[in-house]
């Protein structure tokens, strides 16, 4: 018995068709407009399902404590715990608040005001946690906590494996300034400036912060929140999240006033692949992108069998995200970097590099390469539509003796000239 053509169309991408089935489907398709439509839809659906997820930074792994339930060990839960909730304001009765996935601040239903009086017994916040204070610079934090185990590419996030994550406002890579938030899990053994231990109980928290707002999320997580306001606006806030045991699983101290507000320019850049001028903005420029890219490529170098190329030109200042990947065939490892503005995700350039023979150069060995990138290095331009990832410029190049590299540069909004400009700006890692 032959399956209905619909079933064959839906399944054929996962199994080979034999000749007889192909013939049967072919004949049927000629007559059946609905089947042709379905095949087109399946093709498009498969393409959509293959669209890659944007690369995201790997959060620090949290070690599970044997006596705790799995969710307790994930500090993200503590922050995300503010997601969908009902807030009970002290003395204000029950109130419904917005439902959102963004773990932003809960409503300041009751806050402590320094020297002021949101409610009797209001607690001032010292603004310290784990011995470090909001506003400190990198050197001061280092003097107290030591070297962080990891830092983010731009140095604004410091992670200590013992359960502390710190964010800074900005600053040079080596020494950021303006500590804006401190996140602590019980493993850190940290205490707040007021003396609350991060693994303390709800009762202890209440005793120290009697005006704290209680928020409840998906039971059994409970979050208590206390904040300082200035000019009617919430600034410094402390959020403690408690698990079913009634003990805190995380504490977050954050000063919204210190989170930098960078004047965001609106830029008008090069004609796009569609021929239309592109306006991006407001967007946050990343003037240090070259340094970050080179640093990250250096740290990825050990995993690669070739010397990658570093780009020196981008139409606008972008954020660099470097990821080695192992999807370039057996026993080969590629590296991909994405240069993009973070928000809105309007502009991005992807540069993929692998050992020669890994990718398009294997699929299209006889492709006509007629764009000279450098003397003797010829590239091929493939005019893909923006919704399929945009045009691609690819070539192979010897970046060091014995290091033959496949390179592909693409961007949904770039035209041929911009891709060539980027390609010509590239130099082997380590070369002046």
């Amino acid at each position, binding site marked *: 018995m032959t399956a209905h053509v619909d*079933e064959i169309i*839906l*399944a054929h991408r*996962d*199994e080979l068709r034999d000749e007889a089935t192909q013939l049967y489907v072919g004949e049927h398709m000629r007559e059946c407009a609905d089947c042709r439509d379905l095949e*087109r*839809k*399946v093709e*498009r*659906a*498969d393409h*959509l*399902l*293959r*669209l*890659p*997820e*944007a*690369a*995201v930074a*790997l*959060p620090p*792994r*949290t*070690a*599970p404590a044997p006596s705790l339930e*799995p*969710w307790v*060990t*994930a500090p*993200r*839960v503590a*922050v*995300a715990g503010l997601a*969908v909730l009902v807030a009970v304001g002290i003395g204000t009765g029950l109130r*419904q608040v917005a*439902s*959102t*996935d963004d*773990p932003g601040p809960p409503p300041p239903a009751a806050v402590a005001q320094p020297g002021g009086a949101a409610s009797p017994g209001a607690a001032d916040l010292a603004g310290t946690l784990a011995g470090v204070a909001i506003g400190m610079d990198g050197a001061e934090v280092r003097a107290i906590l030591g070297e962080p185990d990891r830092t983010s590419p731009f140095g604004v996030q410091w992670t200590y494996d013992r359960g502390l994550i710190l964010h800074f406002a900005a600053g040079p890579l080596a020494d950021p300034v303006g500590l804006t938030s401190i996140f602590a899990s019980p493993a850190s053994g940290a205490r707040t400036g007021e003396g609350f231990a991060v693994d303390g109980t709800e009762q202890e928290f209440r005793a120290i912060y009697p005006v704290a707002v209680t928020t409840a999320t*998906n039971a059994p997580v409970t979050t208590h929140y206390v904040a300082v306001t200035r000019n009617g606006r919430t600034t410094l806030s402390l959020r403690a999240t408690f698990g079913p045991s009634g003990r805190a699983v995380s504490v977050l101290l954050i000063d919204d006033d210190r989170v930098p507000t960078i004047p965001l320019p609106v830029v008008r850049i090069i004609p796009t692949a569609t021929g239309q001028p592109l306006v991006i903005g407001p967007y946050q420029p990343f003037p240090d992108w070259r340094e970050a890219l080179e640093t990250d490529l250096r740290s990825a170098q050990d995993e690669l069998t070739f010397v990658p190329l570093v780009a020196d030109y981008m139409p606008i200042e972008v954020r660099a995200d470097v*990821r080695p990947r192992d*999807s370039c065939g057996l026993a080969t490892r590629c590296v991909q970097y994405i240069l993009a503005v973070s928000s809105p*995700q309007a502009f991005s350039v992807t540069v993929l590099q692998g050992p020669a023979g890994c990718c398009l150069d294997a699929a299209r060995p006889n492709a006509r390469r007629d764009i000279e990138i450098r003397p003797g290095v010829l590239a091929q331009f493939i005019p893909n539509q923006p*919704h399929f990832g945009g045009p691609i410029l690819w070539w192979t190049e010897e970046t060091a003796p014995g290091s033959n590299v496949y390179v592909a540069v693409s961007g949904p909004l770039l035209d041929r000239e911009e891709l060539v400009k980027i390609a010509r700006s590239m130099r082997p890692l380590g070369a002046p």
Partner: protein
Amino acid sequence: MTETKEGAGRAVMRVEYAVDWDALYREHGPALLRYLRRLTKSPDNAEELLQDVFTRAIRARRTPGPAPEIRSWLYRIATNAAIDHLRRERRWRSLPFIGGGSDSSLPSDDVELVRRSLRTIAPEQATALVLRLHEGFAPHEIASMLGIGEAAVKSRLVRGRRAFIDAYTRMGGRL
């Protein structure tokens, strides 16, 4: 990690394995995170599930085998975690005071619409589709990973494709 094995001569052998979970996390974490992100509503959900995957893995106290087996094993745990999450989310969505509304405020680009569509179809079908098309596993690999037959995987893929197309177009996507 400790495991006790009974040898051929009935001697009891105590084998100690040192598992470098940090190294496994660094190696497989990024890919698993992208896989989970495809199936979840927010990056926070995906990160939370990733932590859950490694917590489950560590608690399983199982001896990881060679590299391909570890990868497959972690994907199996991630798939089970994702299915649990999707089922739980579906239950929560049915409650009147949660959900609704929030989805409409999400960006409507293709990838987001794909994620939203996947969350509306059967979790087993959604995970099969993502493992096949996003992660690039062959049906027989998915079958051995999930401990089901290859025919069952293909069936999930066929039903999943149909359900996905319906969901995607219902949400305003154009195919």
